[in-house]
């Protein structure tokens, strides 16, 4: 019984962390049809921003939840203005350029911080369920994921920015004809996507530590979550995270964490083959 409860928490945590690391990418991909292969490095930068800020004596909550998203959001806007905006409509070239950006950022952080893992210890203590013990921080990550998704839903559903965003997604030309300035929307979108990635990277930094090449561990997982989810940002991310997170955690439980990841990736390939449009291409079509 205790084991079941523990497993349930672990599965929820796997789902939450998947949703958290993919939602920034989902926004950028869903809105702009830009494949950002430097996504993992945005997460990595978020982790570094949080760790540097914490080591300067700033409260860990402030550095994780405020400073990291702002820093990475600004970096995102700079990247959009200097690289991405020249490549709209050239999907493959965007992939290649952002891959170059990813290598560049890995090299840059290696030059600055060195090729070692730095970490901050997870705040909050631990909780016991019967004979088992797990970190309260797990629950915090789940809560952050829920809050982020709820906030995105609220913004998309009830604000002017959300309306403009949905309009641009559905038909960019029509939105432009109605007076929306697409370059500005794209820059803001890219910035928000990057900021969310920075937040995710910072929140997960105490769990995994941060090192320059950590992006690789994130990028494939977030990509398959976004592509597995399909066009709808929220319901897609959520349903794909739920599916892949469960598979990952159950396989991890049965074998080793490495094979848990392999099972996740293999399941994703099968899913893309069965539903090329993603889960929301077939189900939940009217979701956000």
């Amino acid at each position, binding site marked *: 019984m205790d084991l079941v409860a523990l497993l349930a928490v672990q599965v929820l945590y796997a789902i939450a962390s998947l949703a958290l690391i993919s939602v920034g990418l989902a926004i950028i991909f869903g809105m702009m049809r830009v494949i950002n292969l430097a996504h993992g490095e945005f997460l990595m930068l978020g982790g570094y921003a949080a760790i540097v800020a914490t080591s300067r004596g700033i409260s860990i909550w402030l550095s994780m939840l405020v400073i990291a998203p702002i820093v990475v959001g600004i970096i995102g806007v700079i990247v959009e203005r200097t690289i991405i905006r020249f490549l709209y409509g050239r999907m493959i070239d965007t992939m290649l350029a952002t891959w170059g950006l990813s290598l560049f950022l890995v090299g840059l952080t290696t030059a600055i911080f060195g090729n070692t893992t730095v970490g901050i210890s997870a705040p909050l203590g631990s909780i016991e369920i019967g004979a088992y013990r797990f970190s309260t921080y797990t629950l915090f990550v789940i809560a952050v994921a829920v809050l982020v998704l709820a906030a995105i839903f609220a913004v998309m559903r009830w604000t002017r920015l959300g309306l403009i965003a949905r309009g641009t997604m559905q038909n960019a030309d029509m939105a432009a004809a109605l007076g929306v300035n697409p370059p500005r929307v794209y820059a803001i979108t890219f910035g928000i996507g990057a900021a969310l990635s920075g937040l995710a990277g910072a929140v997960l930094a105490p769990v995994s530590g941060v090192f320059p090449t950590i992006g690789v561990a994130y990028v494939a997982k977030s990509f398959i979550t976004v*592509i597995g989810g399909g066009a709808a940002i929220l319901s897609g991310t959520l349903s794909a995270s739920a599916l892949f997170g469960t598979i990952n955690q159950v396989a991890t439980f049965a074998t*080793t964490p490495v094979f848990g990841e392999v099972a996740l990736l293999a399941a994703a390939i099968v899913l893309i*083959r069965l539903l090329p449009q993603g889960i929301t291409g077939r189900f939940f079509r009217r979701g956000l």
Partner: protein
Amino acid sequence: MKSGSLNILGLALVGIAGLAVLLLTPRFAELDVVLELTIYMIMAILALSLALIWGYGGILCFGQSAFFGLGAYTYAIAMFNIGESTVPVLLAVMLPAAFAALLGYFIFYGRISDVYLGVITLTVTLILFNSVNSTAGPEFHIGTARLGGFNGIPGIPPLNVPGNKSAVIDLEGMFYLATASLLVTYFGLRLLLASRFGRVIVGIRENERRAELLGYDPRAYKLVTFVIGGALAGFAGCLFANWGNFVSPTIFGLAQSAQIIIWVIVGGRGTLIGPILGCIGIQWLTTALGANQPSGSDWWARIMANAPLIFGIILIAFVLLVPRGLVPTLGDWGGRLLRWPLRRASLALKPKRAEEG
């Protein structure tokens, strides 16, 4: 007609240059240079494999290193079990080809679009990397060969003359073999691309729907192209395992995949000589940067020794500024320069034709 004669001239030039490198280098160069050149040749074969499927087939495979790594591992494992290199070499070509066939069937017959193709191949590479990386324990072995996990497999037996186990091919022999293989691959691909099959795959790259309406099955053509690319990459991997007598999971890694793509994009998509030159140039740059190890706190030296940083800048710069790659761009400029005096003369002599205006 003119481009045809230029082609023959180009082919002859490549052939002569290749033969010159093949025959002259071991006579005049030191052994370490020969060793270095051998790896360039091996990597150039890998570059050609992607040049075929991406540059001509239009299939952007982010996981070409998967086939390369499979080839290397297959050779290593088969070699430990068999001890005579003929069968391992064949296996190192056939297994990646079979894997490419399986994956390609999945992708092309599922009609998965370009972007998803990139992500799937990337994912497959990561799966292989993760799986092989975690096989360090002694319980992971195939026959007598231990997989070694992140430690890799050291001490792989070298190639021998087919049928004669004791006639081991030495370093110089490896150079001849690698260079000859590169030349054969290059001319083989030129032949393939000049054939009906080659024309069809370029046609599919240009417009898949049109090719389909003309009665060709793009799925089958792409699959065959993909398999040829996989087999070539596997063969390059087999040579690579020989060159260093060592394989480790890093050859499945994303860094390796990124390099292959950079070679092709720097050299030029849609050419064969471009990726070869791009590969040799970038490999040389890697060696030069690696030799320039960071000493002290000199930030300039630290940046120059940082290969990902430099590669990232190269990749971004080429996508933004020279998206077609060096060889086609330089070829255009060269062509314009050559034609320039001719056109001036012809303009002076003849009235301009209407459709030129």
